[in-house]
């Protein structure tokens, strides 16, 4: 039992302390930002807020939540995140499965894989992308936000490697039972790849949740903006000389608190979802079970 070893025990506690310190370092700035989000703009702008709100107020949150498009934008984001992740992962898993087969078994795989990798690096840019979406009549639709992102080559390659690492016996056993490729994917590989699928799904979800630029370019009506785009639109740009010289306007440039509030608004759903996904990061119990 390696963990009964004395030197391991010392290491263990030292490790725990180290991890706690690192976690603390990660959490402190967040606590500060949380405090700013609940502070008055006067205090926030004077830079005197540290780790606890000064002149507690929920104004910053209200400004965001009171926006009449807020509810609609959440719906757009939820739609995009769910669809984008579900369909995106399906495509990733299917493609990675095929690509994980060795070249002598699946002729042409190398061609496919380089075809995909090339697109990770080379892109036509914003203009042809925009023209394409326009010509396909996808402007202002959810699909403009989804389709271009369905194929995520990075995820595909990670998944592919994961599949390669699985023992060949699994597949061979199923083949001997008469199953074809599709059946093997569905019944054998899919259940086993839950840690990988969970990981990649998390990344995809977060990506969709936080993506704001495509919403700005492709959604023409403000009520169709995803949440991240909406939040971005409330932030005053750096060049405040473009604000009209109107006292009522000027007073609204208290965006330090608003920016801070936004971070929490976008953070909370992920924090709520994350623990559910974490349970899939289990140690290879499942693999170990399949031993002939």
């Amino acid at each position, binding site marked *: 039992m390696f963990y009964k070893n004395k030197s391991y025990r010392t290491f263990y506690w030292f490790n725990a302390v180290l991890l706690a310190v690192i976690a603390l370092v990660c959490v402190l*700035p967040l606590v500060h*930002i949380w405090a700013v989000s609940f502070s008055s703009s006067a205090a926030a702008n004077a830079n005197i807020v540290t780790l606890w709100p000064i002149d507690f107020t929920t104004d910053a949150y209200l400004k965001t939540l009171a926006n009449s498009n807020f509810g609609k934008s959440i719906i757009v984001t939820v739609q995009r995140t769910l669809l984008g992740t579900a369909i995106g992962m399906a495509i990733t898993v299917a493609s990675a499965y095929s690509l994980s087969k060795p070249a002598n078994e699946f002729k042409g795989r190398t061609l*496919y894989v380089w*075809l995909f990798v090339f697109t990770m690096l080379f892109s036509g840019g914003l203009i042809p992308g925009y023209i394409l979406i326009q010509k396909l009549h996808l402007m202002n639709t959810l699909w403009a936000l989804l389709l271009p992102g369905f194929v995520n080559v990075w995820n595909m*390659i990670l998944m592919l490697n994961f599949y390669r690492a699985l023992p060949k016996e699994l597949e061979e056993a199923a083949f001997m039972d008469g199953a074809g*490729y599709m059946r093997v994917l569905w019944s054998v590989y899919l259940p086993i790849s839950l840690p990988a699928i969970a990981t990649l799904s998390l990344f995809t979800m977060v990506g969709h949740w936080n993506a704001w630029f495509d919403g700005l370019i492709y959604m023409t009506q403000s009520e169709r903006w995803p949440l991240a785009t909406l939040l971005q639109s409330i932030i005053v740009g750096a060049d405040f000389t473009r604000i009209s010289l109107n006292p009522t306007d000027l007073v609204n440039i208290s965006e330090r608190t608003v*920016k801070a509030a936004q971070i929490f608004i976008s953070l909370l759903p992920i*924090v709520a979802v994350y623990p559910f996904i974490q349970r899939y990061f289990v140690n290879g119990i499942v693999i170990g079970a399949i031993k002939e």
Partner: protein
Amino acid sequence: MNSQAKKAARWNFSRTWPLHLLLLPALLLVILFNYLPMGGLVIAFQDYKPWTGFANSPWVGWDNFRLLLDRPDSIQVIRNTAVIAIAKLLFSLVASVLFALLLNEVRQRLFKKAVQTIVYLPHFISWVVLSGVLIDVLAVKGIVNGLLQDLFGIEPVLFLANGDWFRITVVVSDIWKEFGFGTIVFLAALAGINPSLYEAAEMDGASRLKMTLHITLPGILPMIIVVFTLSLGNVLNAGFDQIYNLITPLVYGKGDIIDTFVYRTGILSGQMSFATAVGLFKSVIGFVLIVVSYRLAYKFARYTIF
């Protein structure tokens, strides 16, 4: 057998057609949304005007690339970009792997879950906000320097005003922000290692350290190589948002990257040709590096990364 049948046999369609079918959606999407628009890269070689379009904008050949490469500070800017990006790549990889290994040793599930969640959170703080916090905290009259003064009697460190320190600050703060993300990948990879290997090693009386070196690390080494190679594609993306928000003229010499100056020029001229040319330049370099890494991995470790 005629040539067509021979070809089919070579490709083994009768057996592998499901595999091709599974790839079909991705293939179609990629052709439509990636390859079709790639024709737009032509504007990198034009003096592109939106109203004349691709077909009619005048051809200028390599001029747009010269804008990037002919400046007196081109080499400096490209070097800054490469240095910062490579430092980020290497150190963040090390940080993620180490952290994943350390976290993996923890047995208390609640603590483990909590730490895992917390370290992922900085990813959500935008650079606009984070840079404000950093500028405050690392100021000459800020908290960190205050502590250094009070506890160790050190003179204030110019974290953001000295070129070398600026690079360090940029790299460290980016790692702090993103290492939680990388950790997740490696934790998932760790979950894939066969536990019977550990059991066997334990019975042989191996220490945990030996187990880590001989089982765990080799177990996740493929994943490390993959992540490393894929990240190479980004070697000229040193983090625009972050640097744009943190930089001051004092550190231009060591901190100005390709993207910040593409941004400034773009604001000035509204021209899209230049940005496209620079993007193409970055893509080519990134691609070459990936190919090289792929070849090397195959040659020396017999490992096909993808």
